[in-house]
């Protein structure tokens, strides 16, 4: 079977789900962030695959670039906040940061 759009989409779907799984099961804040990176990469696979099979549509590439840029910015902010959590709580386990609830 020739490799087509669907193949890439399936990889993207699996990667997306794996990323979500990481986000909802990892305790360590940074591992949660890694899960997030997987989600964003899955998105990028989608964009590039759709661009390739949609007539070499450059818009998909642009979108992917912006996703990468924003992922970097988001990672920077998120890591800074995680560091701050570490200062205040002396750990970075997201499920133990639960004073605000109800």
């Amino acid at each position: 079977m020739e490799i087509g759009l669907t193949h890439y989409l399936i990889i993207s779907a699996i990667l997306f789900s794996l990323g979500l799984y990481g986000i909802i099961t990892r305790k360590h804040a940074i591992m949660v962030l890694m899960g997030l990176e997987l989600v964003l990469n899955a998105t990028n696979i989608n964009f590039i695959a759709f661009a390739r099979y949609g007539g070499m549509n450059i818009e998909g590439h642009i979108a992917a670039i912006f996703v990468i840029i924003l992922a970097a910015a988001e990672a920077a902010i998120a890591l800074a906040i995680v560091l701050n959590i570490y200062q205040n709580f002396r750990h970075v386990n997201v499920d133990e940061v639960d004073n605000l609830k109800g």
Partner: protein
Amino acid sequence: MTQDVVLPLSILILLIPLLSFLINIFFGNKLGRLSGVVGTTILGIDLGLAIVVAFTKLTSYGTLHIIQNRVEWFNLGSVKVLVGIGIDNIAAIMLIVVTLISFLVHLFSTVYMEGDRRYPKFYAYLGLFTFSMLGIVIANNFLLMYIFWELVGISSYLLIGFWYEKNSASNAGKKAFITNRIGDLGFFIGIMILFFTYGSFMFEDVFAGISSGVMPFNNPTMLTIAGICIFMGAMGKSAQFPLHVWLPDAMEGPTPVSALIHAATMVAAGVYLVAKVFAMFTADALTFIAVIGTITAFISATIALTQVDFKKVLAYSTVSQLGFMVMSLGVGGYTNGFFHLVTHAWFKAALFLAAGSVIHAMHHAAHHMHDHHTDAQDINNMGGLKKTMPWTYRTFLFVTLALSGIPLTSGFLSKDGILAGTLAYANLTGGWHWIIPVLAFTAAGMTAFYMFRLTIVAFHGEHKTEIAKHTKENKLPIVLPLVVLAFMSLWIFYSPNPIDASKGWFHKMIVQPKSAVPDAYQWSFLLNEHAEEDATVAHQAEGSTTHLEATTGKPDDVKAAGHTTGHYLNKFQEESHHFHYIAMILSLLIAGSGIALAFMIYQYKLISADKLEARFKFLHTFSLNKWYFDELYQATAINGILVVSKALSWFDNYVVDGLVNLSSYVTRGFSYVVGLFDNYVIDGAVNLTATFTGFLGAKLRKVQTGHIQSYVVFVLLGILILLYFFI
């Protein structure tokens, strides 16, 4: 005085009490004791103006349906929203009722509230309340009416909860407010249905729309539903079953407030509303209204029989009388319903003020004797007040006669009219409708009984406590309003003939409006094709014989098709007239036996209390079985509460408490079942709703675990569920 002046003057009447509110709220602390004087004076001026306006309207323009204006307020989409004020005959009369009673209450309170540390605030709230109430009276559209309707709710909340240090008072205020909101919910929906069907909030536009045959959602049933929704607002304000629970609790407010709110104004607002929009009710809606009114009148009369708190008796009696008014409107007795509203306002205000006078005297006496345990409102602690408080007694006795419906009083005229109306209605409609006059007469009899029970126990006989012995008659500002109000309860103000009001000015002025509902959906006996012209003719040339053919609607309802209606507006009025004397004799007999029974039991002690108890058990059992209340109550309410509470009991204190209370109350005996029904089923239903929403809220709250990852899980789940839900 020309027509043009009426409306500006009305606005002035509306705004003057607001002035009193503003002065007392901002300068109250500086004024101190003076704030009462200021408030009373301002209301006196307002009363003067109201009298001028009302007399101008009734004498110079009595035949003119309404003096009103229409002003564009704002645009809603493409629709211009019009508002305005209008004075028709019922509004003119209401202006006097509201301002006079408010004035007397202001006067009364100068002594009664003496020494209260929030004295100026009390006057401020009274001003605000009067303002809002007058707003309801002069509104000629749903929008303004609804706004003032809510304002009345808020200001009554402030007044009922005035002594908020008492937990019960602040809870009573809240209960009144929330119960009223339930009614208002229906009111609001009704208004919205009408607005989006007819594109206007103005009464006349809505009526015109209805009579042109346009139906909400193209469905005549929706018109009935809209009518019932509007009526729900009245059910809340006028304490109709099953929303009547707030009124007895509201007795926690200062007694003058009870006189103002619970006798003459706020509770009358509902009846007033029904009268204002009478033209839009279909036959089915009217039947609903009549049934609700009857149930209210009967149930609360039965409850009033057993109360021992002076004010509670009056409270249930008020609910019962409001039931009478609503019932009268529901059966088509428009004039008599409104008539009873007016007459009742005077004598019920007098009763409450007399109660205030008694309680005030009891408090003073207790204070002097350093007794802080005896309940100053329990009638079993009174007795013999006739000797110590002669003026209060005299006025109280007279207005009790009025409430019981004894000739030479205004109460007789109006109640007699209502009862005749129910007979006429039952005769015209037949079938189960006969239950209405039966219950009405029974309730009337009970009214006479419980009022005399109250009079005899509290005023006659020996002093039952030392406190009662040491009571003294109050000062003039308390006694004067009593005398004025008692005086107003004489028959002569309404009709020269003490046993028939239909020739009096009141019946000439207050004419049933022509129904806007298409004939097919209205009782044929209420159709008065040439209502306005006919009324005019009747007014200008008395005794003229304009003969009208009876209109034909539902054929089987018209038993005497082809009859001429004479000078009567419609078949109903003619029939009422036929029943007038029967009703009079019947009601006199029933009231008389009620009074006689009261005397036998409480004055001469010919019948023991035990026998009485047994008797009541029988009566209640009978009435309950008749309505299947018992079964309904067992099957739905108790079992429902049990099932739900079992499920929730691990979690919920309210229901656990409710269960404990419930089981203890069930054992108390059957004679209190009606009271029980009132307090625990209806309250319980309200509580249950509150508990249920609270329960849901608490459950939903658990979802907010504080764990960010579970939030993400919920988001993902949410998206999945939504996806599969909408596919």
